């Protein structure tokens, strides 16, 4: 995995601005980390509604920690957010209770930029359309794959060889990338 080090000055700068109480920095923080945190929470919990709650809680907890000067290594903000996210997800999985402690003011702060939300919705619509372009068998291959079946199991179900399944799946993912545009182009 080509894991890049975070751009230290930028993160430090963001943390410093939040610490000083700059509202624009809070908005930038939410816009930048809101969706990734929610995606991680959705992947771990399989529960989009709970993931939204967890995301709100994580962002609030991290903002509060920054304001209280509890983030000792601002250059590792990503790791701090990840730790907080993991803890809250584990709490949720243990207790299966959703905390709803976000006050009205924080909702204003934690709302992701509507433009970003709109772009995400467009992307979702496009993705769903692209999926429907594949043949029923190809869709079944993807379905079984994301249900957690192995290639060998899928081969048994749809009557195509193991190698062909792998190739078709890779081809589909490649086509999806080409149609919706590789995000590295951003």
């Amino acid at each position: 995995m080509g894991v890049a080090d975070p751009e230290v000055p930028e993160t430090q700068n963001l943390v410093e601005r939040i610490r000083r109480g700059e509202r624009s920095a809070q908005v930038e923080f939410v816009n930048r980390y809101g969706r990734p945190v929610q995606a991680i929470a959705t992947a771990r919990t399989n529960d989009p509604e709970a993931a939204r709650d967890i995301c709100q809680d994580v962002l609030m907890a991290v903002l509060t920690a920054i304001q209280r000067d509890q983030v000792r290594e601002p250059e590792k903000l990503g790791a701090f957010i990840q730790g907080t996210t993991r803890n809250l997800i584990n709490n949720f999985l243990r207790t299966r209770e959703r905390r709803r402690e976000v006050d009205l003011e924080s909702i204003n702060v934690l709302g992701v930029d509507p433009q970003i939300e709109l772009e995400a919705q467009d992307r979702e619509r496009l993705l769903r359309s692209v999926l429907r372009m594949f043949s029923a068998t190809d869709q079944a291959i993807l379905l079984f794959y994301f249900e957690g079946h192995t290639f060998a199991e899928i081969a048994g179900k749809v009557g195509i060889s193991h190698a062909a399944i792998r190739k078709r799946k890779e081809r589909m993912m490649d086509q999806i990338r080409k149609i919706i545009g590789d995000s590295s182009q951003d």
Partner: protein
Amino acid sequence: MIDTNCHFPIQIELLEKYLLRRLDSSAEQALEVHILDCPRCARLLEDLLIIRVDLAERTEEIRAHSLAPVPIIERAKKLASNLNTNHLRSVHSVLAITRSILARAFSRVIRPEHATSHSRHLELESAYGDLIPVTSSASSLKPDIKPLSSSYYADALQRINSALFATRSVFARFPTGEIQAMFRSGRSPAHEAYRSVEAILRLHLLRAREGWLSEECASDFSRLGKRVWIVNAIDGMDEFATDRTEFCVSIGFVENGQPIAGGIYVPRTNQTIIGVIDAGVLNNGKIVEPSDKTTLVNALIPVRLDEATGRKWQDLPRLRQLNINPTRCPISYNLALVAIGSADATLSLSPLREWHVAAGAALVASARGFVTALGNARLSFNGVNTLISGLMASAPGLREPLLALMKDAQRSLVTDKKGGGS
């Protein structure tokens, strides 16, 4: 901040493994930190989540279009046209070929060593159709086969089979020997598995105008008066959480308060037992019957360990005559053992919830066995109160001996109490 080193194939492979929980804990954490710092990977993860959700929402549609077997009549027509003779193209010939294909299929499906009677065969063929596989291994139970029979119960049985098959993917994520390690790494495998299995069961079982009863939603009374699925996603949660093998997925289908069809899947031994009341029971694809024992002497009676060592059993000395086998298996599995003839009877003197019993009771009923609440009261499901005071079940031939023993045991208890009181 974009990580320009993230090459698509490597990136997507990692994210897919992350989504399918196939990375170890440290790799997961490293990837999560990376996702938070890399908008490209974050967006790709969102895309994969959308793909997964979209496909899951359309599961039935996709399965129906991609996996429906070629109808047998179409196969026969195709064969006839390939032979290229006028005679074979005629309708009569097509039907003759169809008949021969059907006959060949059934001669393989119902094997002589499992035959009991001709009428029994017809009954089973009618209910199970293609569900009865040629081989006996559990892995050969394909969930996507369309049943030949159009009866409602056969459809329910097909759904049970599909649902149990689909849960395999969840348990593959929680292999034996790793549950404790998962707990130690801060995960909650028991809850994760329970939620995933219940979601899969809902997806495969529930249809419009049907109710749902499980431990999680016992107080949802919209189920009352409907046909209802009574499920226990992980029956034997303590055993699962402590890395033991004695747990199962259990599904019961109840109509008018009576169990109609049921199924049990034991992940660690890959055993699947399904049954429906108007046909019978299959154990890993084999037709099975309950034992033919008619006396309780040396009868095999599995009983939950906590029951066998509990006070209620000690209070009923007559029951000590029984050949009890204390086991950690859940009561639903003990009932299933009675249904398949691996045990002769089972008992529970402690109160149970409906989701602990429904699947097993359906299987015993499907095997023409005897199952009743304590005191020979009729078992009734899908009530407001989901508590069952206790139960007994046995092979058909043990009905009278068991009832007599229980009656005797209770009478002696009353006598002892009166004697103690005076």
